[in-house]
């Protein structure tokens, strides 16, 4: 029996973008895979070798119950135990802004995976700029819905910041996508207009 899965077209736009790039039969590690929405869709529709890493035990249990191979663990502590080149794609969705050492995590993604997808909320979106610049308060927006003292987003970054990090680590950007109000938007002005960004990074 195949795990219950979402049609690729019905995935959230950033996940749909990832699914559109990943070829049939690829080896994929989704870090912070949640309840396995993307992995289940990739396994069902693209026959990928789908693996996941997820910190929350209840979500891991849900994944295993759906028939997915998911390990309870933490990107910073556990990625080091995976061998080099174990995957064609490592995916880190909406998590890089939550880790202690984002640069080292990016390095690890590109060690275990030949390419890496990284997505994050863009802290330079105009709403953030208005909230901070005019309001004088840390922004609370649909993209970053929690107050500064409750949020897990301890390493907020912008589209431009991420491009700089990739260059600094000697990697290269293969492709990037930008999203606002649930849709893909153009690259021009993305640092101001994108609520979220997704990058495909290669070595």
């Amino acid at each position, binding site marked *: 029996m195949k795990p219950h899965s979402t049609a690729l077209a019905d995935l959230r736009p950033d996940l749909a973008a990832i699914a559109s790039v990943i070829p049939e039969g690829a080896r994929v590690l989704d870090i912070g895979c949640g309840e396995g929405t993307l992995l289940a869709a990739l396994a069902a529709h693209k026959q990928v*070798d789908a693996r996941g890493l997820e910190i929350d035990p209840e979500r891991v249990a849900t994944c*295993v119950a759906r*028939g997915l191979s998911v390990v*309870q*663990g933490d990107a910073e502590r556990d990625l080091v135990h*995976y061998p080099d080149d174990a995957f064609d794609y490592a995916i880190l969705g909406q998590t890089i802004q939550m880790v202690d050492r984002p640069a080292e995590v990016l390095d690890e993604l590109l060690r275990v995976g030949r390419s890496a997808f990284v997505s994050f909320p863009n802290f330079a979106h105009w709403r953030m700029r208005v909230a901070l610049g005019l309001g004088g308060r840390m922004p609370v927006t649909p993209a970053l819905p929690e107050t500064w003292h409750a949020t897990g987003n301890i390493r907020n970054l912008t589209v431009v910041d991420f491009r700089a990090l990739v260059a600094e680590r000697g990697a290269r950007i293969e492709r990037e996508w930008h999203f606002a109000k649930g849709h893909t938007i153009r690259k021009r002005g993305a640092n101001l207009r994108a609520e979220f960004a997704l990058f495909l990074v290669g070595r």
Partner: protein
Amino acid sequence: MQDPATALTLPDPLPLDSGAVLSPVTIAYQEYGKRAADGSNVVVIFHALTGDQFAASPHPGTGRPGWWDRMVGPGKPIDTDRLCVICANVIGGCLGSTGPASERPDGTRYAQSFPVVTIHDMVRAFARMLDELGIDRVHAVVGGSMGGMQALAFASDFPDRAERVLVLASAARQSAQNIAFHEVGRQAIMADANWNGGDYYGGAHPDAGLAVARMAAHITYLSEKGLTEKFGRRLQAKGDGKPGEKSFGFDADFQVESYLRYQGSGFTRRFDANSYLYITRAMDYFDLAEEHGGRLADAFAGSSARFCIVSFDTDWLYPTAESQHLVRALNAAGAPVSFVELSSPFGHDGFLLETPGLDEVVRGFLT
């Protein structure tokens, strides 16, 4: 319900890791559910130290429900409407499979002349039994505690014979602490005058020693939190209906003492002291990495199976760190592996009891 006396004698002698050869080898087993012609719906359950083949049917000695009755049966997580469960008594055991209490061909009991067996010997005997039943590759092998060790050994020794490997509250090696607890149990048995060098089958059995071994072991199966919740420091009520009070002596004043004494004496009615020695020894010798040059990943290099490893947060006998160690090795071997630490107040016994998430994980993994 089927004949509880189901047993099979292997056609050939069984060479053991020690260099000894065991012959004849009888394996007692139970089967639940309808087996597909090619055996492809077979789920093998390996039992723990003091378990037996009666996973889902009443124990013939005590009449109590099967030890995994809540997990195995029609519509249950290991669903015998769909799957066929085979559970066998390990060699060295005492419920029908060849062990120290068995008679040798000359009619005398093995006792301490029974050869020391290992976890690998147990699964090799089991694989021979599958051969006899005409089963090549099974849907899954499943085990908790020592059963998990057997599942891992089976996956390592017969890399193409199981599609799925489910390991609960177990480890790829026996820790020093666990060997130490086993040694306490063995010394308690051997210190009982009735043990008589293992030669007691014609007379009084070393029940006092075996009961102490069980009491010590039983503590390791629970958690401090679980014991506190269940017993605290409460005193045991006396038979005359009066509330408990301190005896200023050595009666079982505390409820926890009374409980342990009950567990110990009940155990002696269903278990053989020599079997306890042999099976604990088999567990102590288990170290899957050692057999592969210290590299655990190599134990699974040729495996085609999917793995699911489950630990329990209050299990201090086979703690989560042991499972993580195993998961890293499986990842390094490139094996498809799932791992989850479930939260339970029951300590090591978490795999046998109602632990949130456990049923869903087992059911999902076996689908």
